[in-house]
């Protein structure tokens, strides 16, 4: 059966409209779930940077977050403050920067006197699974906890016994990017915090 232009154009219009409307319905049906998941994983990550462990249940994440975490806006940048007995004990700074294969994002918590790193957590990255992706592992993130820093000297990987952070075997480049990312984040936010604390 030979089909003319009118039919062809009409056909593609109808088919496209039909299928995209199915997608629109599905998307709006699940949108709340998707937003909630994203917000929740953000909250969980922010809290990990303060506390050093993940809260198990979703309800607990929300209740602790609501009572202890305050979102602050300083000069257009968002940071999170962890509040205990109505005093700030730590600040969490969002991190974002390049890794080996793509952008690494995450959260970095610093103590209220801005002298120590409290903790770190990664939200998204595209590092090599099994190698660079091991930045998600506990032992790697734990190395940052209680690490003193100053803006005058940069953090470094352990090399011949000297340095702050042990690199991941087989993923030195990723480790280097992470240290760089932490340094850049500190540089970006510490001055802001010192002035506006």
């Amino acid at each position, binding site marked *: 059966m030979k089909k003319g232009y009118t039919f062809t154009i009409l056909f593609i219009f109808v088919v496209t409209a039909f299928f995209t409307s199915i997608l629109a319905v599905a998307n709006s049906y*699940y949108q709340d779930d998707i937003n909630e998941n994203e917000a929740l994983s953000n909250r969980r990550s922010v809290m990990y940077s303060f506390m050093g462990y993940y809260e198990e249940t979703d309800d607990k994440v929300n209740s602790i977050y609501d009572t202890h975490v305050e979102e602050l806006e300083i000069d257009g940048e968002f940071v999170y403050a962890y509040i205990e007995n109505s005093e700030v004990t730590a600040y969490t700074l969002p991190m974002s920067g390049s890794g080996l294969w793509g952008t690494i994002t995450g959260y970095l918590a610093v103590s209220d006197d801005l002298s120590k790193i409290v903790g770190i957590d990664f939200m998204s990255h595209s590092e090599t699974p*099994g190698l660079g992706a091991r930045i998600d592992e506990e032992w790697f993130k734990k190395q940052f906890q209680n690490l003193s820093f100053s803006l005058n000297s940069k953090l470094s990987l352990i090399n011949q016994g000297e340095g702050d952070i042990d690199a991941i075997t087989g993923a030195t480049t990723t480790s280097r990017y992470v240290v760089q990312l932490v340094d850049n984040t500190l540089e970006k936010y510490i001055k802001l915090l010192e002035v506006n604390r």
Partner: protein
Amino acid sequence: MGELKTVIYRNLWKENPVIGQILGICSSLAVTNLLVNTLVMSIGVTFTLTLSAFVISLLRNLIPQRIRMMVYTLIIAVFVILVDIVLRAKFPDISKALGPYIGLIITNCILMGRMEAFAQKNKPSLAMLDGFFSGLGYSIILMTIAFVREFLGFGTIFGIELGLNFEKWTIMVTPAAAFFLLAILIWIGNNRMAAREIKSKEEVAK
């Protein structure tokens, strides 16, 4: 029944999408280092193949020849995006692990290939089965690769620690290992198929 048997035999073995037609290689290399991710990917591809084959076969007498490729892509994309939305809403961890690869099912040649070669010429029920078994053929190969990679690379099966104490093969977690494993599977497959062909020719000669 004869038709169904050919469909199964062809898709799972003789023209297996991965080792017979060398299609879907990108995902066979990229998402096969953990069994859980591979399983979700396989389900996604099989689901998309089955349903888009069915829909395209239903519309096969309506789709104008000139724009058929556009229509296939549209329909495939709809099912892939549906999978993506459901994963993001219900299984955020897996969705995060698979990253862009779910979206890339749209451009997986297996799908376009089955639509063009089979779904547009056959009745819906058969097209659907063809899509399903084609997806199954793809899944079997991917799961085999993932099994070896996860076992040797991490010492686990579906993330469960086996408690075996051996040196983990770091190469197994990198895509390089998938190249080796895929090549071995293709080699075995082609060898068996060639052997069978020679045998059937000899039988004809007799």
